[in-house]
């Protein structure tokens, strides 16, 4: 039986997050463009409410939330923060908190996750390198076992939250080649504390989402203990995709929310601004654009929630990994494009003001544009969907 309603509990969560975001995030959101930092009091407030990595089990300080509930929080944060900084801060930790919670060792989970959920540490993901993004097998970073420890060498680039983990504490779930000759079966996933000796960070001046840092780091003979291995040696390639997919689902929700919020601003403007004696809202050329964007973004929103619901079904053993991969890839495929197209039109409706830095919508456009790359390009999403439709044998590469 189809039921598109959220539970009473989820509605209450939405209301609480929306109210918090309206009071604590909306008023400071645009300031993050200048300060390049999420205010400490916002992070503390999020932690107090239980909004940081809520996908983590309660015994490690989380809420044990399912993917749909995690999506509801993402949606409300996205509506409140046009810079996309807090949504990114949230989605990375929610997705990779889930992976850590599922595959991390008991010792590591007890040591790290409570600090993450309390907002003291940042938990990120570091797989991308200068020459390897979508092509995870192109990773050059290496990990080798030496006695009772592991030694990591390499470099990661275009990583979210480098400054946050380097200065506040925490680290990134990182992938490296352990057995290069085994290809996908030779990659290992592990937790890399960014305050380790041998980590040298660097930062990138991004186009948007200014409140959270983007950068990279070199990893020079960094030692990690065995309990930081996530899953088993050689399983990293497979595990990492579970995290990507969680994050992709949340990105789809965040994109839809940002686009729909921008349309709301656009509608208010259309009703007030007159041209040739008529409110802009009376011009069908604009009405039709509005209707198209609203339709696409509403379908995107529900498609994203469906994908997250299916992800939850897989967690309950009621759906297959590949069904989930396909649904998530379909949700993510046009998320950035449709949201940015809508926001771009809202900027257009506002005339020259739309091109000024005072216009909130250009902030939102710059934020959402990043999702054209983050956690997989739309081309990769098409590869995944094609793979599921045609079969693995028709895929030219892994």
């Amino acid at each position, binding site marked *: 039986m189809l039921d598109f309603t959220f539970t009473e*509990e989820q509605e*209450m*969560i939405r209301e*609480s997050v929306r109210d918090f975001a309206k009071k604590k995030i909306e008023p400071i959101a645009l300031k993050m463009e200048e300060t390049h930092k999420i205010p400490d009091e916002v992070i503390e407030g999020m932690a107090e409410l239980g909004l940081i990595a809520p996908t983590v089990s*309660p015994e490690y300080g989380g809420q044990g939330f399912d993917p749909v509930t995690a999506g509801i929080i993402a949606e409300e944060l996205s509506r409140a923060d046009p810079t996309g900084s807090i949504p990114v801060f949230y989605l990375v930790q929610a997705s990779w908190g889930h992976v850590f919670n599922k595959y991390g060792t008991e010792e590591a989970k007890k040591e790290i996750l409570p600090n993450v959920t309390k907002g003291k540490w940042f938990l990120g993901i570091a797989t991308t390198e200068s020459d390897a993004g979508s092509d995870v097998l192109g990773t050059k970073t290496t990990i080798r076992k030496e006695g009772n420890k592991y030694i990591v060498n390499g470099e990661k680039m275009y990583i979210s939250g480098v400054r946050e983990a380097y200065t506040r504490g925490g680290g990134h779930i990182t992938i490296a080649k352990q057995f290069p000759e085994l290809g996908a079966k030779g990659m290992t996933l592990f937790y890399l504390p960014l305050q380790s000796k041998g980590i040298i960070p660097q930062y990138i001046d991004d186009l948007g989402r200014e409140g959270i840092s983007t950068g990279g780091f070199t990893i020079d003979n960094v030692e990690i203990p065995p309990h930081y291995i996530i899953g088993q040696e050689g399983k990293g390639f497979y595990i990492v995709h579970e995290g990507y997919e969680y994050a992709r689902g949340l990105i789809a929700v965040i994109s839809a929310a940002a686009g729909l919020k921008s349309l709301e601003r656009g509608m208010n403007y259309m009703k007030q601004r007159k041209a040739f004696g008529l409110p802009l809202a009376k011009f069908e050329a604009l009405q039709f654009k509005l209707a198209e964007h609203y339709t696409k973004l509403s379908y995107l929103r529900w498609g994203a929630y469906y994908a997250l619901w299916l992800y939850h079904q897989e967690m309950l053993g009621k759906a297959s990994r590949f069904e989930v991969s396909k649904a998530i890839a379909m949700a993510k495929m046009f998320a950035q494009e449709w949201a940015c197209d809508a926001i771009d039109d809202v900027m257009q409706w506002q005339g020259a003001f739309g091109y000024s830095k005072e216009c909130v919508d250009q902030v939102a456009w710059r934020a959402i544009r990043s999702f054209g790359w983050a956690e997989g390009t739309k081309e990769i999403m098409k590869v995944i969907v094609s793979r599921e439709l045609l079969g693995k044998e028709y895929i030219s590469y892994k």
Partner: protein
Amino acid sequence: MKILVLVKQVPDTSDVKFDERGVMIREGIQSILNMFDQYALEEALRIREQYGGEVSVMTLAPEQAKSALQKCLALGADKAYHISDRAFGGSDTLATSYALSLAIQKTGPYDIIFAGNQATDGDTGHIGPQVAEWLGIPHTSYVEKVEKIENNVVTVKSLLEDGYRTIEMKLPALVACIPPPNFEYSNPTMSGIIKAKNKPYIWMKADDIDGDKSKFGLNGSPTRVVKMYPPPKREKGQIFTGDYREAVRKIIEHLKEKKVIE
């Protein structure tokens, strides 16, 4: 200490619209927990933290008000009583407070009862004092803070037009609360929301409370709402511009002309 908080679900009046007849458009308006009641609850929870005990919340309202009670549970209340029955339909404040007082006697006794000073919809400020009168216990309205509870006496700080007064009441007593300026309301935490679903939620019908049924609902309500209308819009004021000395002189002349000043 047994503490009770009386609450009400109200329309979110931050975004109220009226139709051309002046009737409130209820469609699309969200229902929320009355903010005065949330403040009363937050005071009650603070008292529980200080003196220990149990905080129950109670409402007399249709089923949809469940979300308001659940919010109270998520904020930290221990138990909820939801009194709901067709027999209470059309109740004014007198009939509502009568039914509430019966339910309080049935579920109590309580050491202290909190209520919001008023609800943001009806804005009467009746319920708290009327409940206390039905119960025959002391009460104070406009309570900004419960200062202390000692030797079975509660000390409260109550707001006056030009200051405050401190009042002592023997327990059991009722306090009708009003939030101080810029009070920052709490949001339910995620874990609070999760815990709320496992807390006792007790439904009560008219038959569950003993009393004179002729005083329930419309029959027990002497109040009749004849008409509701928004206040007339104020005309746009006159703005005096230019050099401030000149502007002040003009304002004084204008006020004299209008015989506001001599």
